[in-house]
């Protein structure tokens, strides 16, 4: 994708997924699901913490600010995987799940408070979040991962 935009301090992504809110909630909070679509890492979110593992090694712990299954998860974000981004201020990610008719749910992801993290904003914008969300949708709708991260 060619893009010349300066990445935004608030980024909004929204998509319909043919799944129940509970299925989506599990897919974003439980390690057996996250490992299949989140850039090759495994994520576990509990009421207090969102932990990121790579090859069973704990890489990052972010703070869970709101935990309201199966509707709303808010947590802090730090792009720990890149030294320059990791030095920036933490930002915030909000997942909102709204049930729709016919077995669909609307998932809205808002990544904001990126004013103090321009490199992170650039890094996660567009393809960054898109890969995660496309992968999540594909996994929930087909039962298979979009890409393998081996």
């Amino acid at each position, binding site marked *: 994708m060619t893009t010349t*935009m300066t990445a*935004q301090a*608030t*980024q*909004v*992504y*929204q*998509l*319909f*997924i*043919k799944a129940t809110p509970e299925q989506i909630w599990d897919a974003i909070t439980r390690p057996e699901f996250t490992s299949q679509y989140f850039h090759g890492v495994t994520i576990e979110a509990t009421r207090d913490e969102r932990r990121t593992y790579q090859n069973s090694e704990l890489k990052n712990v972010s703070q869970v600010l709101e935990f309201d299954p199966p509707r709303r998860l808010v947590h802090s974000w730090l792009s720990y995987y890149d030294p320059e981004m990791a030095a920036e201020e933490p930002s915030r990610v909000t997942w909102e799940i709204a049930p*729709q*008719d016919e077995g*669909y749910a609307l998932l*809205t992801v*808002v990544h904001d408070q990126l004013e103090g993290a321009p490199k992170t904003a650039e890094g996660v914008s*567009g393809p960054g979040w*898109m890969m995660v*969300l*496309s992968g999540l*949708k594909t996994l929930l709708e087909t039962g298979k991962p979009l890409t393998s991260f081996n």
Partner: protein
Amino acid sequence: MVRMDDDDRVFKALADPTRRFLLDRLFERDGRTLTELESELEMTRFGVMKHLRVLADAGLVVTRRSGREKLHFLNPVPVRLIHDRWIHKYAERRVSALADLKTGLEETG
């Protein structure tokens, strides 16, 4: 409401120059109010609202409340899905057709 397999609304929304102009403004700077968007167009507030509603129905624009303001955000997901479904496929084919042509010409030349 849009559905993920409902490309019609996205194509319809994109088929209008004013709506593409609004998307470009949001691409430059996201999270704008109706008043801000309106100031860049010689159009009534009602007219801009109508266009924004079509964009919202197609899922291309998402509104979020921030205090008393209603902010408009560009949602890149539908365009990405259209790209994956419609553009990428045909562009690939075109590229490979050109590659075949090149090979053919080089072989005969």
